[in-house]
């Protein structure tokens, strides 16, 4: 929470990227305490690791300082506040956390828990659901990842590689500056 507030306040984008990485790491810790180890894994590796790196790469391409906004922050703040209140109000109807009678625990989850050891035979139920019961969804996710790669390549592309000597010079200048 404190990290999120700091991210909003800070103007130095480098610090913002670092704090966002820390935020991801803390989130991974929260997932871990909720026993969602698979999600925690992904959050730690993607959110704290690779996303931070890509942000840093973007910073290297653009600038390190945020330009001060020209419009007043009142309207965006109002929109955000209203959306937040509506979202909080929406959670009011939701069943309590961990409630065994919640609809999500009575739909297909019991079948997964009871049948997957005999149907799939894997100790890790998350893998059974992800790869077998929901195999089609996962295929869609992989295609999404692939499409993202294709999209970035078509937008950025590869610049022709410079000779290595020139590259080491430019990197030295960067570390000096």
């Amino acid at each position, binding site marked *: 929470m404190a990290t999120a507030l700091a991210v909003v306040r800070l103007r130095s984008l480098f610090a913002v990227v670092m704090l966002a990485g820390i935020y991801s790491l803390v989130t991974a810790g929260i997932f871990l305490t909720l026993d969602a180890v698979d999600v925690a894994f992904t959050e730690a*590796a993607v959110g704290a690791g*690779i996303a931070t790196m890509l942000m840093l*790469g973007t910073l290297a391409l653009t600038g390190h300082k945020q330009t001060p906004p020209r419009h007043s922050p009142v309207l965006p703040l109002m929109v955000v506040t209203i959306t937040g209140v509506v979202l909080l109000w929406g959670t009011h109807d939701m069943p309590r956390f961990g409630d065994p009678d919640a609809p999500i625990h009575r739909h297909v989850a019991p079948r997964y828990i009871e049948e997957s050891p005999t149907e799939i035979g894997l100790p*890790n139920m998350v893998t059974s659901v992800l790869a077998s019961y929901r195999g089609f969804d996962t*295929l869609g996710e*992989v295609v999404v*990842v692939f499409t993202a*790669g294709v999209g970035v390549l078509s937008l*950025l592309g590869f610049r022709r590689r410079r000779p290595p000597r020139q590259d080491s010079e430019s990197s030295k200048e960067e570390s000096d500056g």
Partner: protein
Amino acid sequence: MGDDRVLRVIARLLIPFILLFALYVQFHGDYGPGGGFQAGVIFAAGIILYALTYGVEPAMRLVPRRLLAPLAALGVLLYGGVGVATMVLGGKFLDYSVLAHDPLHGQHYGILLIELGVGITVAAVMLLIFFAFMSREG
């Protein structure tokens, strides 16, 4: 990027274990936490750490980018190919039970193969995006 010797030595110590851990997460995902997505990301993170400490050029020599785009496609094709194979063998799309005589073994093989496809695609795409950003730098 930097010439920090401490960083380089530590990275050299850590990277083999990161890559090995990625393979462990990949192939042990059926039993413990993890799977293709996580393994691919961890593998890519290991290579990215190498690129950060030893420079992008050596990393690009290590993982040629001409290879990455075909690998990304190969993962998706492997996943889809398993689905088509199950259809050819008389099951539904992605119904792994028909892959072996014992339905349980079939499920096992199917999940192993599609997780491999996921891992290959995710690692290749992450590295592609990273290299695409880094190749424009400067």
